[in-house]
C-alpha cells in the first residue's frame, strides 16, 4: 500500500530466495538464563520458513527479536538488510508496516467489530476514502471466507474464526513478511486445516515471505519450505521437513516423534528420589 511491493533496501531488484531475515550469532538472556546463545537462522524471500521446538525454547522470543520488540545482547538481527536493533522508533514503525503478524489468539481489538478490526491499520496509516477502505476490507475478509461475519464482534467469533479475521487484518496493508505465532494452538482439526491452507495460499498468491512458529510438526511439514528445529537456545537441525523427519540426531527424533524422554529429560532436575521419600537431607 504505502510501500512499493518488491523493494529491497540495497536498491537491487529483489529475487525469490534472497535472505529477507538474517539472524546471526544472537545471544539473548532473561534474568541471567540464556534463551539463545549463538543463534543463526535465515528466512528467504517468498518461502515459508518454520521454526519448531519444544515449549520454552524461545520461539516467541525469536519473533520479538525479529520485530524489534526486544533486542539481542550480542549478534545481529537484519530484516530487509537493515539491523533492527539500530532502528529508531519511527524506522521500526516503518519496518513494521511492511510486516503482518498473526498472534496466538488473534489479538483482535475487543471494542471494534470484525470489519473495523480489519480496517484498523488502513485508518491508522492511510487517508483512503471510505469506499476504498470498504473494498479492501471486504476483499481481505472474503479471502479468509468471513465476509459474512463483517459486523460480528470479536466475542462472537470462534477461535478459528478470530484467527482468520486476524489474518485478514495482517494482510490488509499488503505486507512483505507475514509472521505467524503458534497459528494452530487450540484449534479443532477443521480450523487447523483451514489456517494451514490459508498460510500456503497467502504465501503463494501474494508472494509473501512467511515465518511460522509452532510445535505442530505434522501441519508444518505439509506447508513449510524450510524448517529449523530450535532447542536449548540454538538450532539443532535445519532443512526441509522431510530431511528433519529422516534425521538421526537424537534431539530431532525425540521432537519429531514426540518421545517423552530423550535429550530433553522427562524429569525436572531433582535430588535423589529415595533420599527425598525417606525425608533424608540430600547432600
Amino acid at each position: 500500500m504505502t510501500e512499493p511491493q518488491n523493494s529491497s533496501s540495497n536498491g537491487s531488484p529483489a529475487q525469490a530466495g534472497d535472505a529477507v531475515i538474517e539472524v546471526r550469532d544472537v545471544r539473548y538472556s532473561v534474568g541471567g538464563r540464556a534463551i539463545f546463545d549463538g543463534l543463526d537462522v535465515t528466512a528467504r524471500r517468498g518461502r515459508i520458513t518454520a521454526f519448531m521446538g519444544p515449549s520454552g525454547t524461545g520461539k516467541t522470543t525469536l519473533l520479538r527479536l525479529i520485530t524489534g520488540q526486544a533486542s539481542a545482547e550480542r549478534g545481529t538481527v537484519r530484516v530487509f538488510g537493515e539491523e533492527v536493533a539500530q532502528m529508531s522508533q519511527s524506522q521500526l514503525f516503518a519496518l513494521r508496516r511492511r510486516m503482518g503478524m498473526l498472534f496466538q489468539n488473534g489479538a483482535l481489538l475487543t471494542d471494534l467489530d470484525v470489519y473495523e478490526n480489519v480496517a484498523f491499520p488502513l485508518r491508522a496509516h492511510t487517508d483512503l476514502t471510505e469506499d476504498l477502505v470498504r473494498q479492501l476490507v471486504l476483499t481481505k475478509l472474503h479471502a479468509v471466507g468471513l465476509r459474512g461475519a463483517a459486523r460480528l464482534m470479536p466475542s462472537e467469533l470462534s477461535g478459528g474464526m478470530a484467527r482468520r479475521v486476524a489474518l485478514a487484518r495482517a494482510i490488509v496493508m499488503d505486507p512483505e513478511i507475514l509472521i505467524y505465532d503458534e497459528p494452530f494452538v487450540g484449534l479443532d482439526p477443521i480450523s487447523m486445516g483451514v489456517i494451514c491452507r490459508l498460510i500456503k495460499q497467502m504465501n503463494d498468491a501474494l508472494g509473501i515471505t512467511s515465518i511460522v512458529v509452532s510445535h505442530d510438526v505434522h501441519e508444518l511439514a505439509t506447508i513449510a519450505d524450510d524448517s529449523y528445529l530450535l532447542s536449548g537456545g540454538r538450532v539443532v537441525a535445519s532443512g526441509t521437513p522431510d530431511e528433519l523427519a529422516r534425521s538421526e540426531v537424537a534431539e530431532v527424533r525425540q521432537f519429531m516423534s514426540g518421545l517423552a524422554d530423550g535429550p530433553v529429560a522427562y524429569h525436572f532436575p531433582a535430588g535423589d528420589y529415595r533420599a527425598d521419600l525417606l525425608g533424608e537431607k540430600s547432600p
Partner: protein
Amino acid sequence: MNDSLPVAALRRIGAVTVFLAQIVARIGPALARPGLIVRQIYNAGARSLVIIMLSGMFVGMVLGLLGFDVFQRFGSEDYVGVLAALGNLKVLGPVLTALLFAGRAGTSLTSEIGLMKSTEQLTAMQMMAVDPVRYVVVPRFLGGFIAMPLLAATFTVIALYGAQLIGVQQMGVDSGAYWSQTQAAVDLHDVWEGVVKSLVFGVAVSLVAVYEGYHSEPTPEGVGLATTRTVVVSSVLVLLLNYLLTAAFLKTH
C-alpha cells in the same frame, strides 16, 4: 526488585511521572481523533452519572440533617445552608466524587487496558505500527480528566438540593434566611477551590487508573491485582491531595 519501601515508592512516583510525560506529549496527536475521546468521556462520565447523582443526593440530605441537628443547639438553624454549601463545594463534592469515580470509572479503565494487554491487543497495535499509548491510553486519560470535574459539579449541585430538601422542606428552616446566609458566606474563592480540586483529582485518578492498567501483569491475576491497586492508590492519593489543597487554599484566602 527488593528495594526498601521509600526507594520503591520513589521509583514508582518516578515511573508514574514519566508515564504522565509520555501521555502529555501525545495529547496533541491524539486530538486528531476526537471520536475516541468523546467515547471515553461517555464511558467514564455518562456511565458514572447515576451513582454520582444518587450519592450526591444522600450526602446532601445527611448534611441537611447533621447541620440542622448541630445548629439547632445554638439556635442558628439558618446556617444549615452555609455548612452544606461550603462543605460540598470545598471538600465533599470533589473528594467523594473522586472516590466514587475511582471505584466506578477508574477500575473499569484499569481492567479494560489490562485485559487488552493480557490478550496481546496492545502488542498487536505496536506490530501494526500504532502507538498504544496514543491510541488507547491518552483518550482514556483525557476522558477521565474531562469527565471528573463535570461529575463533581453534578454531585455538588444535587447535594445542595438534597441539603435544602431536608433543611428547608422537612425541618422548616426559613427559605429566605437559608439562601441569604448561604449567599453571604460563599464567595468565588470557595467555588474555585472545588473546581481546582476536581481538576487535580481528575488527573490523579485517571493517571493512576491508566498507569496501573498499562503496567499490569498480563495475566488474569495481574489484571485483578492492578484493579485493586487502582482503587487503593487513587483513594489514598485523593485524600492526601485534598488535605494539601485545602491547606493551600486556606493560606491564599
